[in-house]
């Protein structure tokens, strides 16, 4: 009786070994996968009001989109397929924002999943001065998020992107803050 039970226990322990190893690995990996998903942009906030989205304590809308480089907006023509897209967003705070606007990420994406990151601040400001020499350049999301608007006041954010001409009609602007991820907003540019 006793050796029989002992043998059964021995076999049971041996067989449960791969199961336990897989479980230990899986639990650890799952924690990391969950954290990675939480940090990435995976949930799109859908809007109720046409063109206006509620995100991170403010209502967001697309203010102005400019496509430069084909001679229609300004006389500038860029070589080849290159186009400059200038995107302006307006955010009206309906809550106290506090620290919620941190680590802003803005990008343009098309229907195939390609992503364009905005131009860096120095280049963006240089281009702003070329386009509108008499006006101060509108700040980008990174700088604006350091001083978010107070309740019931609005702020304008501008970012510039270099995109190929064939993707210009399928672009949408994506924005997210670290504290609100995985939620993000996506507004089609309508070019």
């Amino acid at each position, binding site marked *: 009786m006793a050796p029989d039970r002992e043998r059964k226990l021995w076999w049971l322990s041996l067989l449960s070994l791969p199961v336990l190893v897989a479980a230990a690995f899986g639990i650890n990996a799952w924690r990391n996968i969950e954290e990675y998903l939480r940090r990435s942009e995976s949930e799109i906030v859908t809007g109720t009001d046409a063109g206006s989205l509620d995100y991170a304590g403010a209502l967001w809308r697309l203010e102005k989109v400019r496509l430069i480089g084909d001679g229609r907006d300004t006389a500038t023509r860029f070589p080849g397929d290159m186009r400059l897209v200038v995107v302006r967003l307006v955010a009206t705070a309906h809550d106290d924002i506090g620290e919620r606007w941190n680590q802003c990420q803005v990008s343009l994406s098309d229907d195939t999943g*390609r*992503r364009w990151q905005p131009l860096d601040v120095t280049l963006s400001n240089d281009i702003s001065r070329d386009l509108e020499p008499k006006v101060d350049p509108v700040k980008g999301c990174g700088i604006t998020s350091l001083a978010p608007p107070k309740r019931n006041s609005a702020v304008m954010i501008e970012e510039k992107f270099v995109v*190929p001409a064939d*993707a210009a009609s399928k672009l949408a602007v994506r924005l997210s803050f670290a504290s609100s991820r995985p939620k993000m907003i996506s507004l089609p540019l309508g070019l």
Partner: protein
Amino acid sequence: MRIVFLIIMIVLSTVVLATLQATTPPYAMLTGPIMTDGRQGETVAATTFSAQIKQVQKAKTLAWDQFGRAVERQSSGTWVIVSAELQAMRETMPVRGATIIGMSGRLYHQSQRAQAAPNVLSAKTVQPGLPTTGIFIFEIPEEETRNMVLVLSRQYGPQLEDELHITLEQNGLVSRGRLEIGKNGP
């Protein structure tokens, strides 16, 4: 009989374990770059970016204009200037890691003495859908300029990122005395 069996099992498991230990890839390789091979002239494509090497030139002296001043750089070896066209497939990215593996297998990173030259690709960002052309400049001893392989990546020491290995052509590599680099390349 049992003892013989036991000894055989011990020896066998020692051999198996030793083989497993000797053939485990090191940590650096497991978390290292994802390599794609190719040759000069064809478009070598990885998942995130691709490159096509157009021309390779050698020169003893490089010259360019910096803020209106003429700058010259000479080398105890030779300058190797590689013209390339880069394309990004997924996202905006820079291509800052450029190394040439010389004939002896030594790794020559791109020369920081010539980083301020116009049209250097490691200072540009490549946007998806927009091919970007430019040059990479290296400083290599003369005897290493045979069987060169160009290694490109987003940054030096890529970890689980794409790395292109492109074999550069042997023939037709002409050496000049002096190469002027203008705004649109050499």
